[in-house]
């Protein structure tokens, strides 16, 4: 795996964390739990879909493996950065509250990256069958 690709995975992981963090910051200011729940899940899902698309469009093989790598790296980055914000006192939530309310939402990330990997794997297999 070359350095540029590693940098891309990490950079995208940072964006996957940054977008929902900014969006939910404004949503929590609005004071509505419903609005927060909606914006958190859609912001995480939306940014994971867009960045997975940008990443996968340059990939030509081993899609499932790439999806698993993206899932592990992106989930780790988002959790580590969230925990840093909690320790710095920037995020007002406690670690336990964070683990119960926010972390389960991040399961959407592997669902999308691994799902896209499996999907591309099958689509390429189908194309090979038709062309073969």
């Amino acid at each position, binding site marked *: 795996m070359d350095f540029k690709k590693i940098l891309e995975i990490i950079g995208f992981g940072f964006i996957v964390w940054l977008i929902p963090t900014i969006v939910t910051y404004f949503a929590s200011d609005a004071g509505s739990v*419903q609005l927060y729940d909606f914006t958190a899940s859609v912001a995480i899902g939306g940014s994971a879909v867009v960045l997975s698309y940008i990443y996968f469009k340059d990939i030509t093989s081993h899609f499932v493996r790439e999806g698993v790598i993206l899932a592990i790296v992106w989930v780790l980055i988002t959790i580590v950065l969230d925990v840093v914000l909690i320790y710095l006192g920037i995020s007002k939530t406690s670690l336990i509250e964070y683990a119960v309310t926010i972390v*389960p*939402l991040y399961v959407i990330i592997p669902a999308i990256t691994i799902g896209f990997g499996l999907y591309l794997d099958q689509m390429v297999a189908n194309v090979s069958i038709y062309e073969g």
Partner: protein
Amino acid sequence: MNKNLKLVLFGFLVWLIPFLVSFVVFPLKETMRPLFESIMPLVLTVTVIVLAYYYLKDLDADFAKEGIIAGVVWFIISIIIDLALFLPASPMQMSFADYIMDIGLTYVMIPVITTGMGYLAQNL
């Protein structure tokens, strides 16, 4: 299967599967709301990815366009069925504004995912 029939049938399943799961996990909404709010987008995401795959894999071209169409149609189907259930007087009744904030806007995930998958297939 006819493409349009498949599109509508899959749209119904995109609504039905999360709806059935929500019934099973509904007790969590009172006791562990955050977990409930995490499970539902996840179920919706996995359902859309699986059904979009089965829809797109039988197409020969225009994957991006078909991805967008599938997303919009499935989004509309889900909203229409939900509104038919939630707006009339029943134990599930809620106002239109509450429905949109609590459930409806989550369906925005549907066109986002199908459009992404359509464009990915287009690039292959």
